[in-house]
């Protein structure tokens, strides 16, 4: 019975990973754009980026998910629950990733930009070749945290009827009256996924670390 349970729930893993692999990069792209606007943009765009971050981070993800889902799978844009849910999660995550990247950009410091401009680079060139490579390195550890949050928050799309891990566990729990086993297996799968993700990103962080001593 245990293996039946497991194989039923584990089928949702692909969807969970799928949601995460859409939401995370989408949030990264959007978050990076917003972080750059906030750091290097003019007064007005800077203000707008700050408001974007404030609003998205001030509301529970599940509430935003329902609102964004309502927009993304509505009459104008008509996406499947899977895509609407994934992109919504990505938008929510973008605000958090924006703050991570903003911190990293600030940590790199204005001096690197000044030095790049001093050899004749344009702002864009300096951001691309000098600031970003350093900022992204600095961002890996806090980003690893955000990656595990998005992975876990992907369970929220169950509320939209997407048959990911939690949804399947809930179905099993209802039909077999074995909630502990069903949710326990779901928890175990999540744990393994998060653990592996964090480990992989730790490795990446270690690999991209800049040498300091001879």
């Amino acid at each position, binding site marked *: 019975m245990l293996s039946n349970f497991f194989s039923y729930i584990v089928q949702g893993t692909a969807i969970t990973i799928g949601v995460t692999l859409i939401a995370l990069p989408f949030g990264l792209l959007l978050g990076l754009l917003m972080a750059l606007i906030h750091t290097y943009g003019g007064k007005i765009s800077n203000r707008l980026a700050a408001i974007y971050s404030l609003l998205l981070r001030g509301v529970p993800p599940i509430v935003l998910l329902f609102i964004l889902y309502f927009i993304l799978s509505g009459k104008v844009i008509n996406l499947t629950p899977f895509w609407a849910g994934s992109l919504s999660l990505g938008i929510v995550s973008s605000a958090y990733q924006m703050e991570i990247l903003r911190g990293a950009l600030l940590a790199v410091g204005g001096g690197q930009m000044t*030095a790049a401009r*001093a050899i004749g680079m344009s702002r864009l*060139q300096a951001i691309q070749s000098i600031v970003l490579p350093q900022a992204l390195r600095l961002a890996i550890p806090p980003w690893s945290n955000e990656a595990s949050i998005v992975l876990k928050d992907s369970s929220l799309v169950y509320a939209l009827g997407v048959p990911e891990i939690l949804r399947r566990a809930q179905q099993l729990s209802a039909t077999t009256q074995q909630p502990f086993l069903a949710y326990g297996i779901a928890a175990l799968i999540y744990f393994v996924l998060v653990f592996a993700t964090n480990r992989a990103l730790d490795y990446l962080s270690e690999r991209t670390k800049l040498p300091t001593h001879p």
Partner: protein
Amino acid sequence: MTNPILETRNLTKIYGQNVIFKDINLKVNEGETIVIIGPSGTGKSTLLRCINLLTSHNGGQVFLDNQEITAKGHDEDKVRQQIGMVFQNFLLFNHLTALDNVMIGLTKVKKMPKDKAKEKAMEELNRVGLADRADHYPGQLSGGQQQRVAIARALAMDPRVMLFDEPTSALDPELIGEVLGVMAKLAKDRMTMLVVTHEMGFAREVADRIVFMEKGSIVEEGSPDDLFYHPKHDRTREFLWKITELYGKKEKEKGARE
């Protein structure tokens, strides 16, 4: 008379209510080394930043090769390619090796092919005596070595003028010599240089002209001998006397500790 490579006319910088410097007129001729000295907070560093347009000015003009670079619509990035700058805190690109630090301006800004850029970068590293450190990251280099790589990075762009903003102020005393040595060699090779420094020994030996700045204006300028031995203004004498005394004290303390 030769035309100056670099000239400022009534250059003025104001932050809010604070006048950083006012009506600075400075001429730098080809091959000249000019040292700017003066107390902290008199706008020396800001003056350098205004000259290569890293900081905006509030009045006056800057000319490079008789072209007004402060004119509206002038390509700032082009200007900075022709004016090298060395900073107090080195500001090497931390994610790049010494070689890549020197190369990146050539490949990204000058669009030079990689192999040619590498050749040129190695030449410049050789010039500052660091060819053997080419594959080291800034974190693996001493302060003096980092500053020499920074000089090579600026030189690689073949600038018309080099600006030095207190290049040795952040260095351990025993590392200052190697950086000043490289700079003295550049001066001997007739590189045009504008140097802000507190190193009076360097100023006296290497400078063609010394400019004494205080409270945002040029108080006095002249040859090292004139300034050190026959200063026209009391303030110049006072400043030079103080700074010499200060270094004398340092020497004494060092002697006492040993």
